C-alpha cells in the first residue's frame, strides 16, 4: 500500500498546515485536536535544489539530492531528489519511502523523481 505524508487542516478556518502545528497559523484556533489530517498530493514543481556532498552519518551514499517542491495544492515540502539533472520549474512526482535509517529506527518521507 502506498504511504502518505499528512498535512493538517484547521476545522475552524480551513487553513492547511505542513508541517503540523498545534495552533492555527491563520486564525489562531487553539483548541486541542482541532485539525484534520489530509494526505498531501504527490505531484508538483521543483522550486529549489542542491546536491549535498558532505553527508550526515546515517547516509551510506556518496551524495544526496535535496530539494523544495511546491505540490499541486500549493503546499511546499522539502524532500530527497532522485533526479540526475534537476532544474527549477521541473515537474516532479513523489513517493513515500524510507529516507533515513538510524540504528533502531526508519523514517519515511518524500522522494521525488522527474514526472
Amino acid at each position, binding site marked *: 500500500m502506498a504511504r502518505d505524508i499528512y498535512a493538517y487542516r484547521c476545522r475552524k478556518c480551513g487553513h492547511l498546515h*505542513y*508541517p*503540523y502545528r498545534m495552533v492555527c497559523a491563520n486564525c489562531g484556533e487553539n483548541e486541542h485536536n482541532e485539525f484534520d489530517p489530509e494526505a498531501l498530493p504527490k505531484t508538483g514543481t521543483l*522550486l*529549489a*535544489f*542542491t*546536491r*549535498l*556532498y*558532505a*553527508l*550526515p*552519518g*546515517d*547516509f551510506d551514499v556518496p551524495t*544526496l539530492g*535535496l*530539494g*523544495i517542491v511546491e505540490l499541486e495544492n500549493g503546499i*511546499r*515540502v*522539502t*524532500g*530527497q531528489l532522485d533526479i540526475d539533472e534537476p532544474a*527549477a520549474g521541473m515537474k516532479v512526482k513523489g513517493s513515500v519511502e524510507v*529516507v*533515513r535509517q538510524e540504528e533502531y529506527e526508519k*523514517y519515511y*518521507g518524500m522522494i521525488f523523481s522527474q514526472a
Partner: protein
Amino acid sequence: MRDVYVIGVGITSFTRLEFPLSEIAAYPVMMALKDAGIKEVDHLYVANMGSGRVNHQTGLASAVVDTLSLTPAGAEVVENGPASGASAVKTGFMAVASGVHDVVAVTGVERMREVNSLEATEFVATLTHPLGEYIYGVTLPSLAGMFTRLYMEKYGVTSRHLAMVAVKNQDNALLNEFAHIQQKITVEGILDSPEAMTNNPFVADPLRFFDCCPVSDGGASVILATREVAEKLGKPLVKLAGVGQATDTHCVSEREEPTDLLAVRRAAAQSFEMAGVTPADVDVAELHDAFTILEIVESEEVGFFKKGEGHLALERGETQIGGKLPINPSGGLKGRGHPVGATGVAQAYEIVLQLRGEAGKRQVDSPKVGFTCNFGGFGNNVVCLTFTREN
C-alpha cells in the same frame, strides 16, 4: 529603561582548543574583567549550543561561575542555536536595562572540535525541523546551497561574488591574531586554477568548501553595566544602544518568498529603532557569514544596500576595511571561525574594539556606530545589536 554600556571585552583564539569547555568560557571573562578594571559581577550569562551533546557536560553556567570564583552570583546558559551569543548579550542587556542587575558578564563558548567535522555538522543539523527537514539529511550547508542557487538565478550573484566574500574575509582574518583561518586565497586560485576542483570542492552545490565557515572552538566575553558604573572607569563609552530579535518559520520551505530573510530584516529594524539610528548611520558591521551568500543577503536585508544589490557593493569594494561600510573586519565567521555559541559575542567584541579605536591593523576609520547580525537556524531566529560610541 536604563542605558547599558559595554565596559569590558575578552576573547580566546578561535581554533582547535585542548582545554576544558568551562575554561574556554571562563578565560575571556577574566580578560574582560581586567579590561574593565573590575573583579565582580552581579550575574553571568553563558551562551552555548551544544555542551550537552558534543561535550557531555550540562549545567555549564554553574561550572563556569565556579571556575571564575564568582559564586554566589547567579548564572545560566542561554541557548538559541548559532544565535546563542547575541541572545545572551541581549539577555544581559535586559537585566541591566531593567534595573535587576548593575553589572553582568556575558560569555559565549563552543568546543566543537571535540568531535569530527561530520559529527559537528550533524550536531548543528539537529536545529532543522525534525520531520520536515532533518529526516531527509538536510544540513545547514544544504539549506544554504538551495538558497544560493535561487539568489543567483534571481539577482545575478555568481560564484565569483561568493569567492570575493571569502577572499575579503580571509584577508581581514590575516589582520586578526585570534582568527582561526590564517590563509591568503585568491578568486583565481579557488575558482579557476587547475587545483580548484580539489582544493575547493562542492559541499552543497553551488556552495563550495571556501563558501563555508570552519568548525572552530573558542570563547568571547563582554561585560555590560549601567552608565553610572561605566563613567567611573574612565574608558571610551560604548553604548549597547539597540537590540532586536525576530523569528521565521522553522521549515525554510514554508517561506512565501524563499529569497527573503524576513527575520533579519525585522530584527535589524528593531535594533536600529531602539538605538535611534538608521542603516545609513552605520560605520562598521559584523554580519553572520556562515556561508558567503549570507554576508551579501544580510547586507541587503538589514538595509545597507537595496535588495539584490549587495553583490554590487561588494564588487565596488565598499565592504572592505578601507571602504564606505566595512563588513566583517574581524574576518567574520568565515575567517575568524564559528564556535556557534561564541559567535554573537565575538561579533560584539569586534564592534566594541572598533568603536574604541583599539582594533589595531584592521581598525576602521573612526567609527561612531557599529552593528552586528547573529543568524540562528537558517534565518529562523535572528538577533541584531546596535552599538554607539559616546564621548
